[in-house]
């Protein structure tokens, strides 16, 4: 019943604006989609922060925020409200332009990535041919922004933190990219909708378990979550690259972190958990709801990881990335290739 809710809205809008020239019509529809996505990200980021604190509380024998608003739901809104009206300190040694540019830009790659994520059947804002590659390319830009933030702060902790984070993100991007390769070999397309369609019968988590593991670990690392949260490494580097940021500038990083998490979970869902496909033929639940359910299951696991594991040391982190994950993901390509030949020999 609700299956076509959002698609229907978009179509309705399009026909409503039928009188306008095509480009403008498309642009307006795109803008509406965009605003919807933006709202979606913000609401989700707020919710995720709240959920994180609740989950953390529950795992630590306490209850977490419950006073502000019903069940404490307005807690994160209050936090953001406060951060907006907090002073942004730009201290005298900073590289002022770069320092302020970083928080402005930090949301850009994240939001742009959302353009290709299908939230449900036919519900990607843009379903482009090289969707996956686009996603990877844009996502790789965020490293530069983190580095900008750390360098411009002109603070040793920030610089150390940002250099670490860049080295980390760079090292884990590789296994992530290589892990996806296994999926692409099977689907033969970089289009998100094709990838999901290819999982009609079996999710790739079953056909590509190694790739799934690698991708999952690498994406946890990419969004700097524990046990790979060296970027913030509170007990060592104070707050990592955002040590000098205050107020809204900090809030931007804070939100972007959660938005990044959202991307990672969405990616895991799309690539390995069948995206919006309903399992066991339970398709009375709309596709977009399935997508959320899967996404939030992954999210919960990531949160649980954070509240369970200690932080790993930087040299171990690098060693793990390069000496375990990269060879493993290369091996995965071989195995997938050979496996597919065998499968074809038997199957067809």
């Amino acid at each position, binding site marked *: 019943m609700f299956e076509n809710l959002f698609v229907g809205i978009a179509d309705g809008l399009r026909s409503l604006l039928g009188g306008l020239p095509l480009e403008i019509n498309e642009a307006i529809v795109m803008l509406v989609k965009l605003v919807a996505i933006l709202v979606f990200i913000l609401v989700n980021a707020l919710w995720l922060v709240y959920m994180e604190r609740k989950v953390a509380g529950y795992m*630590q024998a306490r209850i977490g925020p419950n006073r502000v608003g019903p069940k404490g739901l307005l807690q994160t809104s209050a936090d953001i409200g406060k951060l907006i009206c907090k002073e942004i300190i730009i201290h005298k040694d900073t590289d002022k332009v770069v320092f302020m540019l970083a928080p402005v830009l930090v949301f850009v790659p994240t939001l742009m990535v959302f353009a290709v994520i299908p939230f449900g059947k036919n519900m990607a804002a843009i379903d482009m041919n090289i969707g996956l590659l686009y996603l990877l390319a844009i996502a790789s830009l965020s490293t530069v922004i983190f580095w900008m933030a750390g360098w411009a702060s002109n603070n040793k*902790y920030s610089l*150390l933190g940002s250099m670490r984070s860049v080295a980390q993100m760079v090292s884990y991007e590789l296994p992530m990219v290589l892990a996806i390769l296994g999926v692409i070999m099977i689907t033969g397309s970089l289009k998100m909708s094709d990838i999901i369609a290819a999982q009609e019968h079996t999710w790739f988590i079953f056909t590509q378990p190694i790739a799934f593991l690698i991708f999952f670990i690498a994406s946890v690392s990419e969004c700097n979550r524990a046990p790979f949260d060296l970027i913030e490494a509170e007990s060592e580097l104070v707050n990592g690259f955002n040590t000098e940021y205050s107020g809204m500038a900090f809030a931007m990083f804070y939100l972007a972190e959660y938005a990044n998490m959202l991307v990672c979970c969405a990616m895991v869902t799309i690539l390995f958990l069948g995206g919006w496909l309903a399992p066991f033929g339970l398709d009375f639940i709309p596709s977009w709801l399935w997508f959320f359910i899967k996404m939030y299951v992954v999210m919960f696991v990531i949160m649980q990881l954070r*509240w*369970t*594991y*200690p932080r*790993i040391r*930087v040299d171990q982190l690098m060693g793990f990335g390069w000496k375990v994950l990269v060879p493993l993901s290369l091996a995965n390509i071989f195995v997938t290739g050979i496996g597919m030949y065998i499968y074809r020999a038997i199957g067809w």
Partner: protein
Amino acid sequence: MIRTQEYNLNFGPQHPSTHGVFRLLLTLDGERVVKAEPICGYLHRGIEKLAESRTYTQIIPYTDRMDYLAAMLQNWGYVMAVEKLMGVEVPEKAEYMRVISGELSRLASHLIAIGTYSLDIGAFTGFLLAFRERETTMDLLEELTGSRMTLSFARIGGVAADAPEGWLDKVDKFMDKLPDCIDEYDGLITGNEIFQARTRDVGVLKPETAINYSISGPTLRGSGVDYDLRKAKPYGIYDRFDFEVPLGKNGDCFDRFDCRMREMRQIIRIVKQAIEQIKEIDGPVIAKVPKVLKPPKGDAYEEIETSKGIIGYYVVSDGSTKPYRVHVRRPSFINLGYLDEMLRGYLVADVVAILGSIDIMLGEVDC
């Protein structure tokens, strides 16, 4: 390897993992420590000096504030020194009360030590779960003494009060529950591979060095030196209890941490035995001492084993109501002595691990 330019990094005083206001001036080469200069004194409150203008009894609350995590043990050390000076005999029951409350204090201290250590390593949950048990310990201590942390429970010649009704049973019940909790920490922290990878072979302290640097407490025993004052020179009534002294093998951070973990299990044993034995004893909890204490001229030194190591109180009397001099051998301060060499060559992340594993208490370091 190219040697990069060395630079200084302030680690503290306001740093989440220096456990208070402690400052380490690190000289780093890349991320490796070349030199570490511990700078303390940010919490120097002049307790030793203040003690000279207080009467003997009035000093007791001040000793609390040295190692505020295990306040009873500090009280105990001090009153033992004064008792020795005055030749006071402590009633049996008071000794037991001291043991029970002292061991509970030690438990609270160890719980914080493992909690904050897991926080340093990055596992937040371990920290808060340890605090859950600490709250119970605090409740028990509060019921006994009236304060949660700064107990001021010991008195010269005994303890301030007898156990309230039903208190011993409560302690007993808590001791029954505790092993499960310790198992939980073991599962969550000690058994975790990441934690082990972080702490094994880091900050190795050789037994000889440890002895040479006069290091004591779990830090020493983590290196495998079997020296616990409770066993080696049983003070009070410790010779009546049957317990083990947990020892480490390699002397690395993990061993030190594990020593504390296993020591907690021994605390359970001691407390359980003490509760069993105290039930048969009746009598006062404080000896007859004059209201105004005037110890004879002379000096006395007594040392006991606290949760951090061997604390020694040296009290000099000039025959008046106030001590001429009080000096404290603070284990945390002495354990810090080897820090610089222990840190050299390790990464910044290891600094946190090593510093946390020594379990310093700044109130005691700076005194």
